[in-house]
């Protein structure tokens, strides 16, 4: 017996948004830790460590997110012999995925810092870790904000894939409502609109920040 799409159904969709956002935020936090690690590994003098980081990034950038979800979900089930909850599996998978992409973004930011800054810090007798901490990372962090915000948008969209393994976020809520109301022409465009409302302001923010940073970098690159 089909329901018609009304306020209750719309509220069901709205109530799924916190799950989407929570998953995105959690993955961003987990990914930030992994990503910082990966970014630094990409620039250390040790070649095997660099290759490790490159391989990690290549693995997550060269495989579908859906496959990463499946492998993590069933991999965890294999390792712990029980049916894992959706949340830990999905959070872990998306954190590892974010870590790879953030690591690559942040490596780019670090490499955008002119070699001269490294030299100046080195010639003040600072060790490599101290060069990173006091001189390079603070500057790289500023440059990395626009692409990181851009990636956050990508992440919010990709959380929709969790719907495929039954995790209830906005897209899954849309599927459930479509099944209940038989109104795909109403439900899915509304779901798209809700994602748009979440993502578009962030996209605009990323673009604005990008142009500010370019101006600032332009002044710095004068030397």
């Amino acid at each position, binding site marked *: 017996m089909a329901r018609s799409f009304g306020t209750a159904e719309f509220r069901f969709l709205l109530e799924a948004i916190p799950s989407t956002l929570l998953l995105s935020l959690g993955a961003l936090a987990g990914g930030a830790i992994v990503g910082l690690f990966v970014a630094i590994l990409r620039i250390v003098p040790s070649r095997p460590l660099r290759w490790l980081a490159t391989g990690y990034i290549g693995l997550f950038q060269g495989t579908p997110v859906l496959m990463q979800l499946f492998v993590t979900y069933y991999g965890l089930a294999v390792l712990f012999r029980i049916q894992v909850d959706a949340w830990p599996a999905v959070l872990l998978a998306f954190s590892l995925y974010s870590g790879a992409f953030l690591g690559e973004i942040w490596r780019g930011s670090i490499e955008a810092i002119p070699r*001269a*800054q490294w*030299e*100046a*810090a*080195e*010639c*003040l*007798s*600072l*060790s*490599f870790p*101290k060069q990173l901490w*006091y*001189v390079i990372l*603070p*500057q790289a962090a*500023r440059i990395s904000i626009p692409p990181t915000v851009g990636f956050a948008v990508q992440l919010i969209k990709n959380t929709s894939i969790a719907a495929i393994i039954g995790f209830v976020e906005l897209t899954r809520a849309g599927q459930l409502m479509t099944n209940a109301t038989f109104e795909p022409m109403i439900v899915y465009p509304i779901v798209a609109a809700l994602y748009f409302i979440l993502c578009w302001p962030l996209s605009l923010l990323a673009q604005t920040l990008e142009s500010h940073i370019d101006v600032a970098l332009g*002044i*710095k690159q004068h*030397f």
Partner: protein
Amino acid sequence: MSLLALNNISKRFGVHQALTEVSLAVEPGEVVAIIGRSGSGKSTLLRCINGLEWPESGTIEFDGKPFEPSPRRLKALRREIGIVFQSYNLFPHLCVERNITLGPTAAKGMTLAAARELTRKVLRMVDLEDKTAAYPQQLSGGQQQRVAIARALAMEPRLVLFDEITAALDPELIGEVVRVLDKLARDGMTMVLVTHEMGFARRSADTIVFMHQGRIWEKGPPAKLFGAPATAELDSFIDAILFVDPSARRRVG
């Protein structure tokens, strides 16, 4: 024993031989000005002195101890040998005071209070005492370069290297920097400079080193090198410079 001794160092970049069998000794308190055309190897030579470049052959000794490529040894070396770069390379995200206190506190373990006191002292030497809270982007080129000098001095080095530090400055800002260089020379600082400032070289240097095609072509006191160049290359170099640097013309003529 010389403070710094370079023995027959050679350095190649790919197919380009930048330095060929260069030997040089620097005594404490000596001011050495390295001059020459671009591509003569001046900057490469300077960068070998604090380990930014590494010669393939020959040895470098500081205080009698030879250079080793180990990070620990390089760190120790850089506490004694400071450098000021052509593009100043100040840290843009830190204020002037923090730019200067960073080295002493993070690399030498000085307390922040002591470092701040030291900062005031070195900023006084470069005439910028009132700029502690400013950020590099708020300063003129000449002011930034003087902060860079102060930053190097704050490490209390026994030798300071200067890599064409006025070459990137607008002409009207050069004077304030050269004035600081003269003061440092008078105060007995051991300095090795790659420079085009012939006026300073004539005035304050003890030894002029003229480089040509990766070798030391002539070496001696300013009066001798500028007044009676022994080689055609130095002669034509001075000739070329005279057309550019009026202050040198007044001295040499």
